[in-house]
Structure formats: structure tokens, C-alpha cells
């Protein structure tokens, strides 16, 4: 699916140079479920952003589905991203002014899909994550778990091949957290590649492989036997 080769990311301000990622080499196969762990500030989110093409690397190669995308202009990245990658955030990042339905539809809005097809797919995915009865509600009327389910629905409604989840359970209680993890696992079982940043070892256990980062380096990679 993707391959990072000697990838580095350096942040510069006038006075300080911060190395967020230092010669990272990672390969993720199609259909994998990978957890990225590590202490705060180790570069997890930076890695995820680069993988998600929301940020670019300072040096090194990023081969995505056989194409080296390092150095691609934003518009091109944006195109690849919207075809292939879905996002789930810790703080849900739903638009407050849109209903549940509209928030999910947003992921299809920029794909030139006719309105009736969009509505169909949104309805289907809402059923799948069990939020259909809240379709007309505003995000502020939902619980955290429900909001994250909307976010998951939004991430998958476009049939994305890969989902990037940045601490998806960070703002949820354990019951809701587990619910979301089970949802991700189910998606993975259907063939979606999932890359997830998490602090929770228990939730990392849902993944087949865990990458541990420390100060911008990959320190260990643990492969779990198939669950």
C-alpha cells in the first residue's frame, strides 16, 4: 500500500530546529491494521499527517500505491487523498453548523457524485455505524461516542482504501472507545487498510502490527499473530 524510505521532517523557526521524524522507514501492506504508539511529541501525529498527505516531508521518499508522491503539489496530493484516504480525529472534527447527514455527505461532496447517489451511500453508511436515527441532528446534540461514529461513517462513505485514525478513542470513555475499535476492526476485516495513532496499549492490541516511535525514530515493530 505505502512505503516510507528514509523519510525525515524538520520544523524550523528562526531560532530552533526541531527534528520531528528522522530517517523513518516503514512499509504498510494493503489490508493491514497498524497501530503507531509512543510518548507525546515523538512524531506520531507528524507521521500520520505525512502519510495522510496533509503535510509534506523534508526529505526522503513516500511511495503511495506505487507512486512516489514526495514533492507532489498540493492539488495533486489533494486528489490522491480524497480518492483513497479517510480520516478520523480524536476531537471528531465535525462541522457544528451541519447535521449528521450533511457532515457525512461532506466526504462525497467534492467527488462529483450525483446528489441521489450521495444520499443513498450516506444512508447505507449511517445504518452500518448505527447512527441513522440521528440523521437530522446537529453534532452538539450527540454524545462523544455518537459523534465519533459519525466521523467513522464520514471516513468510509467514500469507499476509501485506507483510514488514518489519530487517537480515535482519546476523547471517549472505555465503553464508547471499545465500540469504535470494534467498528475499525470490522472495517479492516472487510479489507480497509487502517493506520491508527493511539496511547492505549489495549486499543493497540486490536492492530496486527504496532510501530513504536521515540524522538522521531522507529524503535520497535511488533507483529502480532493473526487474531
Amino acid at each position, binding site marked *: 500500500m505505502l512505503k516510507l524510505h528514509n523519510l525525515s521532517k524538520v520544523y524550523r523557526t528562526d531560532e530552533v530546529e526541531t527534528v520531528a521524524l528522522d530517517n523513518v522507514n516503514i512499509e504498510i501492506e494493503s489490508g493491514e491494521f497498524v497501530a503507531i504508539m509512543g510518548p507525546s511529541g515523538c512524531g506520531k501525529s507528524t507521521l500520520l499527517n505525512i502519510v495522510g498527505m496533509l503535510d509534506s516531508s523534508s526529505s526522503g521518499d513516500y511511495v503511495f500505491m506505487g507512486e512516489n508522491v514526495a514533492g507532489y503539489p498540493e492539488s495533486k496530493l*489533494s*486528489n490522491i*487523498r*480524497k480518492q483513497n484516504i479517510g480520516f478520523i480525529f480524536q476531537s471528531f*472534527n465535525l462541522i457544528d453548523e451541519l447535521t449528521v447527514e450533511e457532515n457525512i455527505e461532506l*466526504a462525497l461532496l467534492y467527488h462529483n457524485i450525483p446528489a441521489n447517489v450521495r444520499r443513498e451511500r450516506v444512508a447505507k453508511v449511517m445504518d452500518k455505524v448505527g447512527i441513522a436515527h440521528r440523521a437530522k441532528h446537529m453534532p452538539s446534540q450527540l454524545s462523544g461516542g455518537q459523534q465519533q461514529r459519525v466521523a467513522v461513517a464520514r471516513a468510509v462513505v467514500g469507499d476509501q482504501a485506507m483510514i488514518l485514525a489519530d487517537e480515535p478513542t482519546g476523547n471517549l470513555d472505555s465503553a464508547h472507545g471499545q465500540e469504535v475499535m470494534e467498528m475499525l476492526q470490522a472495517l479492516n476485516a472487510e479489507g480497509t487498510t487502517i493506520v491508527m495513532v493511539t496511547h492505549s496499549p489495549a486499543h493497540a492490541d486490536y492492530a496486527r502490527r504496532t510501530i513504536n516511535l521515540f524522538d522521531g525514530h522507529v524503535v520497535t515493530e511488533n507483529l502480532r499473530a493473526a487474531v
Partner: protein
Amino acid sequence: MFHNYLQVAFRNLVANRLYSFINIIGLAVGLAACVMIALFVRDELSYDKHWDKADSIYRLHTTFNIPGREPMHSVHAAGPAKHAFLEYFEQDVVATSRIRTFSTVVKHGDQALFESIQWTDPETADIFNFDVIAGSMKDALDDKSSIAVDRSFAERYFGTTEALGEVVNVNIYDITRDYKVAAVFEDFPENTVLDIQAFVAIDEADFVNQRWEFEQWYSTNVYMFFELKPGISIDSINDRSAAFLDTAIQIDPDAGAFTKASDFLEVRAQSIKDIQLFPQGRNGSEMKPTGSMTSVIIFVAIAVLILLIACINFMNLATAKSTQRAREVALRKVLGAHRGQLVAQFIGESVLVALIGLAVGVALVELLINPFSDFIGKSLALDYSDGATIALLLGLVAFVGAAGGAYPALVLSGFLPARVLKANKSAETSGSASLRNALVITQFAISIGLIVATSVVYGQRLYATSKDPGFSKENILVITNLSRSGMRDKQEALRQQVEQIPGVLKTSLAPDTPANGNTGNTNLIREGESDKESMLIGRQVVDHDFFDLYDVELLAGRFYDRARETDGTPLEENATDGEQQVGTLILNEAASYRMGFASPTAAIGERVRMGLGPNREAMMEIIGVVRDMQFQSMREPMRPEMYQLRTDFYLDLSIKFEGDAQPILREVEAIWRGLAPEVPFDYGFIDDRIEEEFAREEQQSVLLAVFAGLAIVIACMGLYGLASFTAERRTKEIGIRKVMGASVFDIVRLLIWQFSKPVLVANLIAWPLVAYGMVSWLESFPYRLDSWIIVPLCVVAGLIALMIAWATVGGNAARVARANPIKALRYE
């Protein structure tokens, strides 16, 4: 605590430079416009209120109600009215006095200049108060060879105000007399409708050959002022004015269509204080151009609108920005601040900004007041020692500050601290968002309205001045004052020499030239009909060459012909009582219909009786009918007219030329100086004259354009501030949309659409209002733009507003749209 407030206020101003700049500059421009308009309006309202007897000075106006015609209003009165009015209203009126301005030739030493001098009655010295520097007004006006001059006149001619006993030679009509200065008075202030520089006494005996000036009832040439006795109401005078006329003027009931004077004459009094703003005469009938209440109202409205736009910016930005200060408010509350204290703090801050705005605004006024004054022809100044001015300025600041600060103050102070501190997100209520929308709509509705109004006023002026008047108006130079003694006997010589100048194509000595303001009328009666059937028809006097030079189209018959001695109008002097003279006459189309002819052709060869003077008349054969032309003024409806041929007196020389006017003009002047060096040279161009009639509209359209531009600039500044604020607030949403695949273009479109909606709504509000207003405005012109023109103008103005809004919002939106979404999402 106050120190803390002040510190926070200043730090906020500096931290939010863009908002502070928009607020302060917007407000400063708004206040400056307001202050200048206020000065203008105050000046307009002050006209003629300074006379000691201002409340009891009135002027008598005359209206001729001729059947079948529009009533003819005149702000003048007939000369005999002075005595008759005082006699009839002896119980009510203290004094009456006439003022008649003549354009004279004044000689002093070896210079001769045209000067306007006022002939008046001695009572003028009692009715108006003069600030006399030397001599006595009474003495000057009681003696027919004395003159009273104002300071400027004295200084110009004698170099000093100590001018008693100095002598000037004045020529008008048959009078050429030395006048001795018997009084010098201070120049009149600018805010009076009187335009006076020198007075001499009326002696009716001086005008025996011009009896129409002061002695005839149907010739209105004088301004007649009168002073009312204390306690007498002007209504009681107006109510008895018909009875006054019937007593003063005796009519022979068998002679004409009327049995008494009040059947066709009307007089009414107007307070001197109302003349400036409610002028009742034709354009140009006052001593100097007047203002109008309509202009005052328009400008007050503009000032209010501009201030409103500036205030709206202020409120909008303050409200928008305030939600970002929720945390500060919450903390202050947690630390024990009362709501009242917070309200005071926020209102105080906004008053502070308003004060800074005022300071910048006053600087702007000082910078712009002189050009503005020059443009509107007044001398306005901001007087800081004047309590009313200071009160006005501070009042404006207090109002703007309080109005701008009130809403955010009340909203902010109402925040619940726990929610604000916990929620960690913008605490904006939907109420403040919709208020802001409403305010933006108001701003743009005002701007669109001003754009449309400006273009209609401009278009109407263009239309009226470029409308075909029925004659050729280009490349015609008119030399005036040919009847002055010194030139009177050299008219033909002048004409012959002028015709030799290269570039001169044609000349005409027609006494009446287009737009010269002559409004004379003469009665015509069709042959065989009684005097009761008489029609009063407009009269212009022409020569043989007039129609050719002015390129007037002949509809039927022929023009006057030099070869036919019988062509023309018989002279009154040559007629004897009871004998009927004969002559020929050319009418315009409207007059031929008015006289009852079926067509222009049908009128040819018919005969009409025409009055030549008391008991004298002529039978005139109609030899030609010409196309209707706008001889008088584009501001007046076309009137039925006759064109009498007279070759016995000339006033003007019309010159049709080709090429550059200046060298021709110089040669004509050289010829004039050679023929009559003692007579001043004066000239004009026909197309200029026509345009001058619309000078007021021209001025208005320029001012409107300036103020509309200001309104739009201020509104755009506000929109820019608001757009950048909104984009900031929507950062998270924009980030999400980008992650979902939205392109920069998608985001820009989203933001631009958000600001297009209020502009579109503003159009819907502005269109009907401005259309209604402009249609009513246009109705005051007899020849006007088709009202439908307002429809495309509205659409264009709407598009302009939309473009401006897009340009304002677009750059900002693009910047926001290009920003990296992860920042927005991570630090949420």
C-alpha cells in the same frame, strides 16, 4: 481599575491592528463627511435669519394665470405695486421697497467695467439693517445722484472705505450720470439671498422711455420687499391679495376676456427667510443661485447614511471581535466583576476608538474643507470656539461610541463564565451573526442606492444637455451688450468686420438668443374673432439671419426675406391710435396649433391681430411655421412661440464659426475695442449657456458620486474586516472540508458565496426604494430620462456591488483556503 481598562483597550487596539485601522479610518471618514455636510446644512439654514427684522420681512411674488397655459410664477412684482400695496395694506405694512438690478457700465478714471448696480427705494435703508462704515444710507437713497457702495466696491474703485464724495459715472438706458458716494456699508454676509454691491435711488422720471421697468402693472421686474407691522399675520395679507389687486388695477370688462385683475393675476408674499430653501421662481430668477430644501434633505440623508455605515462597521467588527474576548470576560467575572462594570468597560473602549476616529476625522475636515467649500461655492469653516460645533462633535462621538459598543457590551457581559471557560470554543450566538448579516445588508443597500442615484442624476444632466433643442447650438458665440451707448450705432460695422474673420461662417443680430432668459409674451387674436378669444403666445424677437444661423427647420411657408419690405413687425412708435398696421409673422408648430390651425400648412396666409401697445395693434400675416424649439430653457416645457422680425434694435451678435473659438474670440474683441473702447466686451457660448442651466445637477452628481464612493469604500472596509474575521472563525470548518478533498477553489467559492448572499438581499431592498426616489426626482424635469432606465442601472449597480464585495473578500478567502488544514484541526 480605570488604568487596567485603558491598558487593555490600547493593547487590544494594537493587537488587532487591522480591525482598529478599519474602525478608526471608517469612522473618521464617516465623521468628516458628516461634519462637512452639517456645516453646509447649517449655512443653508442660516440664510437671511440675521436681519434685525427677519421675522417681518416679506417679498411679494406674482403669478399670471392665463387660461390654457401653465401658470407663470415670478418672484418679481410690478413697479406700481410698491405704492398701491402700501396704500391698501396701510394698517398692516410698515414700508415697501423695490430692488431692481441693472447691468450697468461704470466708469471711473479711464476704466470702464460692467457692474451690477441695484436701483432701490429709500425704505430699503429702514427694512434691512446696514452696517454703515461712512456716511448715511438715508442720505444716499434720498438723492438721485448719490450712490451707496459696499466695502468691496469702495476698495476696488477707490482703494479705501473712506470714499465719501468720490464719483463714479454710471450708464444704463438713457441715463449717464455722475454718482457721488454718500454711504459706504459693510459687505453683506454670504448667507443672504440679496446680492448687492451698490444702491442708487429709483427715480421713475429717469425711465420714461422704459415705462415697463417701474410703471406698468403687467411687467414684473422688481423684487418688492415689505415689512409687516408687529402682530400682523402674513396669512391675513395673502387672504386679501385678490381684493388688493382688484382695487389697484382697473380693468375694462368689455375690452378682453377678464372682468377683474384677480381673474388672471395673483400675488403672494414669501418670508425672506424661506427664499433660499424654498425658491419659487424659475432657475436664475434670484439675485444669486439659491439652494433648495430637497438638496438639504438629500445631503442630510447622505450624512446620516454614511455615518450609519461607519457605525455599522464599528458595531459589526466590535461584535465579531468581542466573541474572541469571551475568555477575558469570563475571567473578569470569575474574579468578581459585575455585569455593569463590564458593560461600562466595553462601551468605554468603543467610545475611546470613536474619539480617536474623531481626531482623525477633524484632521480630514481641516484638510478637505477648503476644496469642498470652493466646490459648493461657500466659505465654510470649522469653528472650535463655537459651542454648538463642539457639542455636535462630542455628541456624535458619544452616540457612535455608545451605539457601537452597546451590543457587544451587552452580549459579552451576558456570557456565563463556566461555559465559556470549559467549552473552549467560540461563544458566538446565532443572534450576533444574524445582526451582523442585517448590518451588512443595510450597508450594501445604501451603497447600491447611492450608485443608482448618482448615475440617474448624471444621466439626466447628460440627457437634458445633449437633447436636441430644435436648433443648432454648437460653435455659436454670442457677443452681448450691442445696445450700449457707444456701440449702439456701430452694430452693423461690427457685424461686417466680424464676418471678415477667417472661420466665421454666419452672423445674426437677432435681439433674442437661445437661453437668454427673455420670457416675454404677446396676445394674438385670429382675424375675425373678438378680443375675448385672445391667446397669450411667447414672444422672441429675431432678425433675417436668425433661422439660418441657428439652423431651424421650416415646416411650412417661408422665412423672413430681406427683399420684401413688408416683412416684419410694425413699430409701436410709428403706429397711431386706432389705426391698424400690417406685418408678417412666423410661429412655431405649437403656436400654430394653439391658435387653432389644423396644421402648419393651414396656418400659412392666415392673419392674426397682434397688440403693439396700448390701443395700438397690427394685422399680421403668418408666413412661416417652424419646428418647435427649446428657445428658453431645457428646464422648462416647450412653449408656443412667435418669432417677430425687428430690425430697429439689436442686443446681441450671434456668430457661427468653425475651428478653434479662441483666436476668433480674440479678433472679435480687438474689433470691438477698435470700435467702442469705452464699452466693456462681454460674450458667451450657446452650448455653455445650456449646460449652465444644469450646473446644480452637475454639482449634485459630482457630490453624490463622491459620497457614494465614500460609502462604498467604508462598507468594503467593513466587509473586509468581517470576512477576515469570519474566515478566522471558520478555520476549523475549512480545515475539515480540505481534508475531505475540497480544493482551494471550493473554499474560496464557499466564503464568497457567504458574503454574496447579503449583497443580493441588499439589492432586493435597495432597488424598489431607489427606483421610487429617482422616479419622483425625475418628475421635476419636463424633459427627462425614461424611467425604465433605472432598471438596468439597478442591475448594474447590483453587479458592481457584488464585484466589489467579491474583490474585497476574495483575496482573504484565497489566503485562508491555501492554509494547511492540519494546523486548524490540531490546535482546535
